[in-house]
């Protein structure tokens, strides 16, 4: 069943007379419970797609539909990890992660009276990303990678139906990153949310996604859509199998054409 549907969507940023065509004629759809990855050269409009799907930006032309309804403003029930962590410096890590609970129904109604329960839930999530000791610290007391991991927790805490991740592991070392792929996959296998992952790491894309979309350089178009037919659960060992490596190479070749 189609959950997210884009038809001929383009977007032009405008600042006075200056215009930038960031995204041209994007057409693709994501099934409910599917996990997709979007890869492409820097500045090709990946973050723009994320904002269009969640309704933070109105499309210049074309149509975006989520759960069958046309997107006209910010949609509900989405968890989004932005490219830069955007944590609030006046809140502790714990309070930052609990923010969605204060805003999203039905948690909003129950939040005050069940705070302890929610904090325990947040603590569990912090543990899985290795930040349990930093719950009471402020974001500016964390390293860049730690901020990114908190950012990820904030996107996950309210168990959204649609999860949008914009380079969520970009500032992490290789080991932590690969560990979090496992965490992410386990979460997805358990909850089966619909996921969109933007990344520059092709191995990450192949590891996590059911389908990988490759975009051209600006103005971004989708030039390749590749189904990843590797059975789950995938593990680090999987990433060394010939089929996995072949897929990564195929994607790399397609992207390198964009740089030519």
């Amino acid at each position, binding site marked *: 069943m189609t959950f997210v549907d884009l038809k001929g969507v383009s977007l032009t940023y405008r600042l006075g007379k200056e215009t930038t065509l960031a995204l041209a004629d994007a057409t693709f759809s994501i099934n409910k419970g599917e996990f997709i990855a979007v890869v492409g050269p820097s500045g090709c409009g990946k973050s723009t797609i994320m*904002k269009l799907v*969640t309704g*933070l930006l109105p499309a210049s032309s074309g149509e975006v539909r989520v759960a069958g309804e046309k997107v006209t403003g*910010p*949609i*509900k*029930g*989405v968890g*989004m990890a*932005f490219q*830069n962590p*955007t944590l*609030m*410096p*006046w809140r502790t890590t714990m309070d930052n992660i609990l*923010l*969605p609970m*204060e*805003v*999203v129904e039905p948690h909003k109604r129950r939040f005050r009276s069940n705070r302890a329960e929610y904090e325990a839930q947040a603590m569990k999530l912090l543990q899985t990303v290795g930040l349990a000791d930093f719950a009471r610290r*402020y974001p*500016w*007391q964390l390293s860049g990678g730690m901020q990114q991991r908190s950012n990820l927790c*904030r996107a996950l805490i*309210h168990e959204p139906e649609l999860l949008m991740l914009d380079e969520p592991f970009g500032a992490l070392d290789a080991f932590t990153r690969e560990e979090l792929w496992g965490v992410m996959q386990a979460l997805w296998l358990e909850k089966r949310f619909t996921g969109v992952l933007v990344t520059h790491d092709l191995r990450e894309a192949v590891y996590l996604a059911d389908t990988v979309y490759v975009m051209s350089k600006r103005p971004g178009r989708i030039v390749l859509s590749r189904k990843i037919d590797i059975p789950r659960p995938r593990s680090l060992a999987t990433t060394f199998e010939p089929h996995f490596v072949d897929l990564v190479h195929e994607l790399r070749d397609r992207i390198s054409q964009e740089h030519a």
Partner: protein
Amino acid sequence: MSDLRREALKIAMPWLATAVLLIIWELACIAFDIPEIILPKPSKIFTVFVARFDILMAYCWDTLWTTVIGFLLAIAGGLLLGLAIGASPFVYSGLYPLLIAFNAIPKVALVPILMIWVGVGSLPAVITAFVISFFPIVVNVATGLATIEPEMRDVLRSLGATRTEILTKVGIPRAMPYLFASLKVAITLAFIGSVISETVGGNNGIGFLMLSASARNDAPTTFAGLFAIAIMGVLMYAICALVEKRMTRWAFRGEIVG
């Protein structure tokens, strides 16, 4: 020099600087034989300060409470108007030019008008303190709101937050450091406001005391009043700075222990 002594010196510096200034002043008065009616010696001012301490305190108290009430009103009004201006482009474009025009009016010119409306006494002083300290608060709060990172707002928008939720969860916390920074400026202005009002047309407060003392050619008392205002100003400024540090620790990003 050890760290401890550096620290001690840093704390002592303002007192040392004040002492040096007073000593130069004292010596200059003696060396050039300046008549007391023009510039009294600090030692003389100090003697008067002590001798007339009770009277000074009574008048100071009057100035202090009119200033503080005007200041508190300015915080309340400035916060509300600042939030309205910062949150809505329509309120902004409508009221901002008016505010700037109003701020350009010298507040001394308002006192006679106030006296026609509300008579002589504490009320014109409160109102003058209010109008003069109102502006920096409004401007700062509005700036704090207007310069919120769009990404921060997007985080809440993507969660489906209402406009009110965005204001209370991002807008107000984000505007707080700007508010507290403006308070230090505003409290000083509030003192200027109430003293101006007392001087131009009051029957109470330290401004009135100075005016009547100077009418009697009593320069030492006039200067003692001046010192009293300066001391009150510094104290209130210190209180505001302390509250600022307490309330917006995050904006200072803590301190490095080293």
